[in-house]
């Protein structure tokens, strides 16, 4: 549904996004996780057609954002970081206005406004001016605006920011329930939010894609294990079996077959057990050839650390 390829964005000389590639399938909820200023908002803005990319392509439902912006915009409901409300308008008039520019059928405008208002439970504030609403309600009106005309793709930039805990739970439930019919990208810098709502996570840091996985795998990778890549010359099945038998190893997989007798293995071991030494002696003692041995880059853990400390501060 959404295809992002080699996306690069410069603000002047400053690279905000450096070569990001990922895709989102229909009905998936993708979480964008990363510290502040990681490039989440920029990436989302490019997908929505708000700004063009410096390089790279974005396709939504098969349409290139740059070549067919209107076709893409028709299919996206977007909630920016700050809900884009007209403060001098009543919520109802505002939603009507959005319905009109989204091309909702003239007769269906009122019904559509009622529908989205019900969905995010703002029916009782429809006749209030946006100015008078609390941050939480403004956020919900922003969400309602994104849902108008039932777009197949939803892009939500920090949808739960500024809400109280009860509202956060409500919004997360809402997003989850929308996930069955919509393709959703949501950004957040709160780790648990991702594991609660998303089916897949993309971690971005300093404009680069650091990891992409399911929340379960990610959490396992981050919390319970250390990953080591080892390239060994030897009968692949035997090597794999031998590695798996080591007591510190949680799992081992063949990452890449480089020939009949050469394989790159990905080994996950318990935290704190630096198994590189043991692994090396295992390979050597078995008379196999040790071609490469390297731990996974640390950046993921670093980001994880940043994210978790943030969450603790919030609590």
């Amino acid at each position, binding site marked *: 549904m959404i295809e992002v390829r080699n996306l690069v964005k410069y603000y002047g000389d400053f690279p905000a996004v450096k070569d990001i590639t990922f895709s989102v399938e229909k009905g998936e909820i993708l979480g964008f996780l990363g510290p502040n200023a990681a490039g989440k908002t920029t990436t989302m803005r490019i997908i929505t057609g708000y700004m063009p990319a410096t390089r790279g392509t974005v396709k939504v439902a098969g349409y290139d954002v740059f070549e067919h912006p209107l076709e893409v915009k028709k299919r*996206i409901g977007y909630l920016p970081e700050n809900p884009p409300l007209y403060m001098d308008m009543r919520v109802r008039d505002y939603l009507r206005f959005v319905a009109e520019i989204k091309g909702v059928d003239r007769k269906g405008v009122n019904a559509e406004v009622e529908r989205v208002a019900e969905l995010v439970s703002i029916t009782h504030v429809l006749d209030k001016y946006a100015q008078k609403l609390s941050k939480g309600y403004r956020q919900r009106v922003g969400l309602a605006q994104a849902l108008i005309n039932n777009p197949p793709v939803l892009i939500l930039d920090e949808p739960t920011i500024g809400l109280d805990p009860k509202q956060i739970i409500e919004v997360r439930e809402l997003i989850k329930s929308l996930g069955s019919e919509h393709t959703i990208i949501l950004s957040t810098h709160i780790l648990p939010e991702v594991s609660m709502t998303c089916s897949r996570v993309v971690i971005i840091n300093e404009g680069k894609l650091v990891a992409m996985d399911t929340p379960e795998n990610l959490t396992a990778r981050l919390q319970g294990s250390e990953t080591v890549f080892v390239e060994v010359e030897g009968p692949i099945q035997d090597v794999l079996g031998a590695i798996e038998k080591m007591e510190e190893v949680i799992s081992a997989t063949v990452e890449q077959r480089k020939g009949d007798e050469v394989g790159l293995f990905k080994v996950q071991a318990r935290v704190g057990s630096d198994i590189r030494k043991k692994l090396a002696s295992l390979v050597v003692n078995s008379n196999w050839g040790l071609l490469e041995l390297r731990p996974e880059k640390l950046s993921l853990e670093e980001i994880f650390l940043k994210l978790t400390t943030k969450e603790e501060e919030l609590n």
Partner: protein
Amino acid sequence: MRNMAAIFKRDARGYFTSPIAYVVIGLFLVVTGIFYYLMLRSFLQYSYAVMMQRAGVSVNVNLMMVRPFLLNMSVIVLFIVPVITMRSFSEDKKAGTMELLLTNPVTNWQIILGKFFASYLLYIVMVSVTFIFMLFLFIWGEPQFMPIFIGYLGILLMGAGLIALGNFISSLTENQIVAAVGTFGATMLLWVIGFAGDYAGKIFGSILKYLSIVEHFDDFSKGIFDTSHLVFYLSLMFVMLFLTYQSIESAKWRG
């Protein structure tokens, strides 16, 4: 078309449901009203004096009263237009609603024209209200209608160029004050450039005079409809609308 209408409606409502429209119209009426009163008084004194000297001769109302009033109004609008246009794009940029417009299936031209017509509507209403003053002349005098009509047409055409100019400057900044001051500076420049034309050389002077926005109104105030002035005002409008388009596009690229 519908998108443009939606944006036009929203912006127009923004003007007329807030105090802005009423403050602008009220202020404009007060200022033009004062000038109207002063001019009418001196006009009456003058025509009274003429009547005392030669019975049966009446002074031309169009020439002696309507024309100076319209010339006067053409300058006053230069001061008011910045207040009308200052919010049209700046406010959306500041509030983040520009992001809403640009991420919905709306083209740049629909946004620009919707906003242009909304602020132009306020201008038209504001200018039209002063027609009440003319009604008094019709009740107690015998002015010709066509010159007045052409004069008002001139004010409206000039306004189209000015409003487009103000919208363009508003699209450059998210600060309404900057937009207002910038537009004010631009309209003043387009006015005084004509004075400078008197002192510049022959060719350069006539170029400066040609660029002066008020200079082109002179014929309209006499009740003369000259297409060259029409072309000037419409060109100003189109150039400014085009520049607004460029400004929105380049803002996208800069991010």
